C-alpha cells in the first residue's frame, strides 16, 4: 500500500488546525465586541490576551489593552504569530506545500482569502465594522471546511485533516470557556435574565454558537455550571470538548486500521486518558477544584497527544526512522 508522505500528513494536520484556530479567534473577537458595551470595559479585552498567553507579545508592542489595540493585535498584526493574518498565512504556507495533494479549489480559496486579509486596512477593523469583518472571516473558514468536505480526496490525508480540526476545536473550546468564566468567576447560582451578566453568559454561549442548542437541553433558566457542563460534556454539541475528543479517538482508531499504520498507540493512550477524565469528572468537583486548572490540564494533554502524533506519523523521531530502515 502507498502510504502518505509524512510531511504531507503533518502539513494537512496543521492546515486544518490553523483554519479552525482562525475561526475561533474570529468568534472570540466578535463576541467581545459585545462585552465592550457592558460595564467590564477594557478588562475583558485584557482577558483574551491573558488566556491566550500573549501578555508579553502584546505589551512589548502596545502600551494599553484598549479595544483598538487588541483587535489590531489579533487581526492585522503580522508580527504577532497568533493573529488572524499570521494564522491564515501559516495555513496558506501549509496549503502551498500541499498543492500537489489538495484540491485546486481548496488552494484557490485559501489563496484568495489570504489576499483579502492582506488588503484590509485599520479602517476595516474599526469597532463598528468589527462584527461584519468577523463574520467574513468566520464564513471564509467555514467555506474552507465546505470545500474540503466536498473536494478533498478521502484517503489518509482526510483523517489527518479531521484530526487537526478536532484537536484544535477541543483546545479552542477550553479557551473560550476559560475566557467566559474568568471575569465573573464560576458559580452554581441561577443567572437573572434581568441582570447585566446575563449578557455575558449569553455571549459565552454565542461564542461557541451554542445558545440555541443549550436552550434545547436546558429550556428553563441558566446557571454558569450548566453552561460549563454543556460546553465540556455535551455528547451532541459539535464544539463540546467531549464530542471532539470522542471524534479524535474514532478517527485515529479508524486511520490505524484502515491504512495498517503501526504507530500511534501512545497517541491513542493519551486520548483515552482525556476521555476517561471527561467521563468521570463531576462538574461540582471541577468547579470546586478550579475550572481554570482543569482546562489547563486538558490543553496540556491535547498538546501531549499532538506530540505523540508527530512522533508516530510525521517522521519527527530519528530513532524510529533508523529502526524502520533495518526492516
Amino acid at each position: 500500500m502507498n502510504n502518505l508522505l509524512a510531511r504531507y500528513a503533518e502539513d494537512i494536520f496543521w492546515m486544518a488546525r490553523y483554519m479552525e484556530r482562525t475561526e475561533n479567534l474570529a468568534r472570540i473577537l466578535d463576541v467581545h465586541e459585545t462585552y465592550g458595551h457592558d460595564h467590564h470595559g477594557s478588562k475583558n479585552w485584557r482577558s483574551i490576551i491573558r488566556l491566550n498567553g500573549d501578555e508579553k507579545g502584546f505589551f512589548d508592542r502596545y502600551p494599553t489593552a484598549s479595544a483598538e489595540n487588541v483587535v489590531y493585535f489579533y487581526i492585522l498584526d503580522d508580527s504577532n504569530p497568533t493573529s488572524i493574518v499570521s494564522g491564515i498565512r501559516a495555513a496558506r504556507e501549509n496549503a502551498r506545500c500541499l498543492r500537489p495533494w489538495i484540491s485546486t479549489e481548496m488552494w484557490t480559496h485559501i489563496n484568495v482569502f489570504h489576499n483579502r486579509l492582506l488588503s484590509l486596512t485599520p479602517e476595516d477593523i474599526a469597532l463598528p465594522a468589527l462584527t461584519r469583518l468577523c463574520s467574513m472571516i468566520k464564513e471564509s473558514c467555514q467555506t474552507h471546511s465546505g470545500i474540503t468536505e466536498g473536494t478533498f480526496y478521502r484517503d489518509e490525508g482526510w483523517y489527518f485533516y479531521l484530526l487537526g480540526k478536532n484537536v484544535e476545536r477541543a483546545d479552542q473550546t477550553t479557551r473560550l470557556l476559560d475566557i467566559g468564566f474568568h471575569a465573573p468567576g464560576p458559580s452554581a447560582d441561577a443567572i437573572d435574565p434581568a441582570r447585566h451578566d446575563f449578557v455575558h453568559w449569553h455571549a459565552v454561549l454565542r461564542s461557541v454558537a451554542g445558545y440555541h442548542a443549550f436552550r434545547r437541553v436546558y429550556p428553563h433558566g441558566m446557571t454558569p455550571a450548566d453552561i460549563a457542563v454543556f460546553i465540556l460534556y455535551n455528547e451532541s454539541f459539535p464544539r463540546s470538548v467531549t464530542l471532539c475528543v470522542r471524534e479524535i479517538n474514532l478517527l485515529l482508531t479508524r486511520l490505524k486500521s484502515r491504512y495498517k499504520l503501526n504507530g500511534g498507540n501512545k497517541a491513542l493512550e493519551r486520548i483515552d486518558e482525556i476521555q476517561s477524565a471527561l467521563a468521570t469528572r463531576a462538574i461540582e468537583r471541577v468547579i470546586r477544584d478550579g475550572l481554570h486548572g482543569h482546562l489547563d490540564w486538558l490543553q496540556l494533554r491535547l498538546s501531549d497527544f499532538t506530540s505523540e502524533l508527530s512522533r508516530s506519523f510525521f517522521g519527527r523521531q530519528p530513532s524510529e526512522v533508523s529502526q524502520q530502515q533495518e526492516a
Partner: protein
Amino acid sequence: MTASAPHPTDLLSRYDQGGFFDELFGSRASPAPHNALIRERLAALAFEDIHLRSENAARELYNLGITFLIYSEQAAIDRILPFDVIPRVLSSTEWAHLEAGVIQRVTALNMFLCDIYHEQKIIRDGIIPAELVLGNSNYRPQMVGLKVPFDTYIHILGVDLVRDGEGVFRVLEDNGRVPSGVSYVVENRHMMQRVFPDLMQNLAIRPVDNYGQKLLQAVSEIAPPDATDPRVVLLSPGSYNSAYFEHIFLAREMGVPLVEGRDLVVSNDRVYMKTTNGLARVDSIYRRIGDDFLDPLAFDSTSLLGVPGILEAYRKGNVGLANAIGTGVADDKAVYCYVPRMIKYYLGEDAILPNVPTNICREPEALRYTLDHLAELVVKPVGEAGGYGITLGPLASKKELADCRTKLLADPANYISQPMVPLSVCPTLTEDGVEPRHVDLRPFVVTGRNTWVLPGGLTRVAMRKGTFIVNSSQGGGSKDTWVLED
C-alpha cells in the same frame, strides 16, 4: 437570429510588424496562409473587449496561484508570468520540420553524452576539443563507465529556438539539465480555452494535456528492472524555489508525490521516502534539483536540498534519475557550437535546425573578431542561465561595452559571441493597442525508450517594446502556442 459576419475593427488595421518576420502575418512578401482565419477573427474584436478579457485572465492566474517567486530585499513576492492573449500559431508543416529537428538534436546529444562517459571517440577523432568536455565544470567523472537505461541521459530537453528575419528557425541554446516552463504551456492553453473560446472555435489545434502522462511514462521506464510497479516521485528544492508552481503542476499531472530532500533517505544504497508508516522504497525520480545540490556527499557538501548517498544508489542501479547526472556538459554554451558537427558525426546527417553562428572566445581568432565587432554582437557567459550576464552590443551604452571588453579579456574562455538575430515578432496586446513584440520558442522533448515532443512549446515574449530579452526573470511573458493539424 442569424449569425452575423464579423465586423472588422481597427485592432489590427494599424499594426506594423516593422522589418521583422511576423508569427501571425508571415513575411511582408507572403502573408502566412494558415493564419488567415485567426487574423480575421482577431480583427473582429474590439480593443476594449480583448483588454477586459486579458485583465480577467491575469486575475484568474493570480487567484489560482499560477505564479513564480521573485525575491526582493524584503520579501518573496508571488508574480504571475505575464500572459499575452494573442496566440502564436504554427502550421502543421512548420511543426513537422521543428519536431524532426529537435528529435534529431536530442538523439545526437544523448549519443554524445554516452560517448564522453564511455569511449570518448568524438574527442579522439578530434571533432570536439578534449578540454571543452573533460575540463568542463559540468562534466561528472562519477558518470564514467556507468550504463544508463536506453543510453538516455537527457529525458527532458528544452530547445530554445528563435526565428530570424527570413523566417528560418535557429537553435539559440539547449536546456538539458532541468528545463522549466512546460507548466505554462498547458496552463496557457487552459486559460485560452476559458477566455477565448470564440477564437478557437472549430480550429483543429493539437492538444497539450498529455504531457504529464508522457513524462511519467518516460520516468517509469528508467526505474530498476526489479520494480514491477515503480514508485515515481518528483524531487523539488521546495516551496521557495521560483519554479515551485511548475513542480506542483507536474506532480499533479503525473499523479506522484512531490518530495523534498528531507523526505528521502538512502539506506543500503536504496532510496526511501518517509511516510506515515515508515520508509517506502522509491524507484525513479524526476528531479528538479541541479547536479551540484543533489547529493552533499558527492557534490556540494553544503547543500541542504539534496539526499546524502543518492549518487551511490544511482550508480548501483537502484534508482532512476531524470535527467541523468552530468548532462550539463551537453548544454554548455561553448559545446553548443559543436552540436551541428556532433549530428553529422553520430548520425551522418546535416542539422535540420541550424545554430545561430557563434564565436567561441576561447579561440584567439574568435576573441579578436568579437573584440573588433563588440557593438554588433551579443556576448554571453557560457555557464549562466536565465539571461543573466548578457551584453547586447547594438543596444549597449559605451560604458557597458567597455565593461564587457574588460570581462572578455580577463576570462575569454567564459564567453561566446553571436550576431544579434532579428527575432521574429508576434502581435501582442499592450496598453496602447496591438503591437509587435519579439518572441522565441521552447519545445519540450521527452525521451525514455523513445522520444516524444509536446506539440508547440513555450512561446516567450519580450513584453517591453524593442527588447529581445524574453526571460521571465527579466520581465518576459508568454503566449499560448498553437500547432494546427492538417
